[in-house]
């Protein structure tokens, strides 16, 4: 039996496809998003509305996402796996298994699907600092 993650992935793909064709997310996909992800969907969409997702890329080819959370805190999410340093991820996703993703990771996917993420290029040194957690705002 397929996992929920496959369903989620397919849904995000659909959103991306429809958005590319029509530049909007129709109501039925929004409702499906809420159905699959729960309240995380609303919060993630709010982050997308506020353009809170930034994709940082370095010349070495590494990519990482930074999401400005509701409280203004910046969370660094990885492009290579589902991980977010926010407390919601630790509790809901890791410990309790209540959610597939936290709102930041979902916001990253939605921003990619709707191409509403900001793009920034950083140097390799900066990327290393971000990934190793040296910078002030990343956790």
């Amino acid at each position, binding site marked *: *039996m*397929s*996992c*929920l*993650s*496959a*369903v*989620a*992935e*397919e849904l995000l*793909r*659909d959103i*991306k*496809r429809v958005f590319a064709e029509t*530049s909007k*997310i129709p*109501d*039925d996909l*929004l*409702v*499906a*998003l*809420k*159905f*699959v992800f*729960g309240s995380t*969907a*609303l*919060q993630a*969409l*709010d982050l997308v*509305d506020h353009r809170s997702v930034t*994709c940082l*890329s370095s010349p070495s*080819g*590494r990519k990482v996402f930074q999401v400005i959370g*509701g*409280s*203004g*805190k910046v969370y660094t999410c990885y*492009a*290579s*796996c*589902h*991980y977010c340093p926010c407390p919601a991820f630790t509790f809901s996703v890791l410990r309790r*298994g*209540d959610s*597939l993703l936290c709102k930041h990771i979902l916001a990253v996917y939605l921003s990619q699907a709707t*191409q509403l993420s900001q*793009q*920034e*290029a*950083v*140097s390799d040194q*900066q990327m290393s*600092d*971000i990934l190793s957690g040296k*910078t*002030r*705002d990343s956790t």
Partner: protein
Amino acid sequence: MPLRKRRRDARAPPRAFPPAGAGEGAKRRAGRSTERRRFAEGFWETHSKEEDSLCGQPLKADRQLVQSASSTAHSKQGERQESVLIQWSSSDSELSDCEPKPPATNAVTRRRLPCYQPVHQSYSSYLRMITTAKQPQEGEFENIEWDSDSSDHDGSVEISDCDSITEEQGDSAEPFLGDAVDISDRSSGPDTTASVTPARCDMNSEQPGRNVGRSASDWVRCVQALLKTPPKQEGRRFRTPEDSAKKKRKFLRGGLAERLSKLQSRQRSAVSFWRHQSSYSTHPGTNPSALVLEMLSVQEECGLQLALCRPLETHLTSRSLGGASEELLVLFSKDTAVHLLAGPGDTVCVFPPWQKLTLKDQSHTVILNTHFSQRLVHDSKVVVGIPRAAPAVCPLYPLTRLFSLTDRSDPAPQKTPTASPVPPRQCRPALREAEADREVCNSLLEVTEARGRADWSARHVQVVVQRVYCLNIADPSSPILLKNRGPQSTSQAQMMSQPSSRVCLLVQDSCGVFSEVQLHDSLADDGNLRRYASEWEGQRCVLRGVKVVQRLTRARSPWLFSLIDSLWPPATPPQARGASQGSWEDPAKLQAPAFCYVLSADHGERAVQVAPGQPSDELYQPAVAHSLKEILQGVPHSQRCTFTATVVHKRLKSTDPGQSEFWLFVTDSSLQTGQEGEQQRTVPVYVSSSCVLLQEVARTLSQPSACRLTFKDVVKEHDAVLCVERSLLQLEPLRDLDPSLIQLDQLGPTTATNTLCTLRGVIVSVDEGTASSWPTCTLCDSDRLEKAPGNQQEFLCGLCGATVDKPAVKMHLEVFLSCPPLSQCTVKVKLLQDTIKSVLNSAACGQEGYEVENVLGVALGPLAAYVRVVSRQPTFWMSLEEISL
């Protein structure tokens, strides 16, 4: 009669209830009068503290009481809550609490509530009496007992009735709320009253005697508290920005979150309404779109129940979804699962609206949005679910399993994470069979899609270069970003924030999509740009190492889109994406693009390689130069155009070649050869700071001589031209027009500011205030001359240090002219040195300077002038500055 008076009137105004215990006290009729008096005294005592003495003014006082009480109570009549709202209670804190409380939780309240209901009634009838504003009947008034009045009060009679009832110990008290309900609803006769009251009065049987006086003051306190604005709760913790858990942010208006929130609330109310309705048995057969499914197995994952189901053949939709053999994965939300309480073997009916999702990898069809679901039993009767054992919980999916948002990549099987930093999923680039080079793609949108993948790498794409120009681009690592990235040296930040001119290309692919490619080369010298333009412009090239930098829209970058619009519709019909060679779209019907990606390419020259083939691609739309006349007449506003013209006058703010903004006045043969008055002779061109000037152009412009320039992709705006971003100025050899033969428009009433004109006139006056002359250095033109030490006849230049014995004299003279075409206008002209000299030569020079009278009447002209100011208020006057062409 007391009982009669207790009758309720449903139309009575909002009532305030007197304090508890008003009625209890004397258990005997004999003691009633005493109790009555005590109650009345107690009540009015308290009340008279706020009001002036009520003695002798019972009516007025009551009215005030009524008003104060009415204002606190709800305006609705017979409201059960109202009767609970204005409720005396044991503590002050409860006074402001308007929620109806069950008596079990508020034993103290109960204690304080002796004979609440009859006292309430008595007061209500009394208040009713007052508010109907009719003259109280004598009899009634006589019943009122006040401090000094000896007449019996209606209420007091009621109280006495209550007293009598208090004796009876009825059943255990009903819930207080129920009492209140009864009180407010009851409008029947006294008999009912009598039957109901025992229970209520029982509540206060413990403290019969004490509460009369205190309860009156409590009531007043209650009313006062309700009238008062509740104080601000000091010490409440204010939400700090870090308190994100408790922070409730309003959604952005018009955003996706707001839209989903509205959809969700609508859906929630629809679901609850449906559930309420469906409890009256809804047969699935009545709804053709309903799914009837048999649950095979259930799992729980991340708050959702995943049920593998088999559609039952009995129903149309179930059959259409694949029949009995096809298994469906049906997802139920937690709320629905709790409502259904279904398990393996059960039959579930899912009513519309539900959603279907097909997983590409697997054969399962997934049903979502199953809020409208019911569990059925054998004879299709709806039953409430029997609790079952909790379904098995799915283990957490591996976090390395990413969501791939691209359709084309083959889904890789889940791999265990390796030590390498490269993510395990490998994406193969999309290929087009027509392409011989399997690494290069034909579509810019494919490149942009590639960045959505986890491990996207730079792509190669074949495009046609439409334009080559320079842009001032700030370095991406701006100081703002660096602050977030951690401790970086500020000097490094400052260095990085300087904008540099970089060569950019505007490219278009065969699908008609535009992109701007920023190369890494900065404009070291002009040679780069000219070379790139000659090599690449119009050619089909392969861009290597393309990465997406930004996505721009019309609103964010209007100048880019004005350039794109000038190249739209495309010269050849664009190929539809994903289609074979044969499908073309009609270019005339296409809409101009609304977005454009900004890409970056590899470093160095290998970033752009010209693809072998035709000398110029058919998609290329070169910038066609027109004459200024055609442009002024034919080109709509805010459109890009190209022309070549001679610069006759420059108004530079400074002599610095790198200076940002200035005006040029240009003309060409089309304007010069026209009839007088038909067309303006010169066109003002504004060069903004965003237009990157080539060094040779800047150098030439800083020189006073005339020059000829090609203005490429400049914007026409009304009667002027703007050089903005992505415009290019190129130097041309000076020919075709002799600067000395250039004609200008005649000065006239329609002359506007910031134009050139020619004028003739007679001096009628001189601006003596500004007339001056000063010596300047003959070598460097500086006016910082000082008397040379030693030799009084010589001057020392402060700038160049040269010794000057005969300094050049510069003069400033502004004269008022009388010009024939402008008899009503005052024309003031600032003259050039040569003109001043010629004017003054004809005048005699006295000891203290020239005589004004000698200058008046001198005819001037034709002069070429720049119109600085044209003012019609309060009088029509113009200020001009003579120029030399």
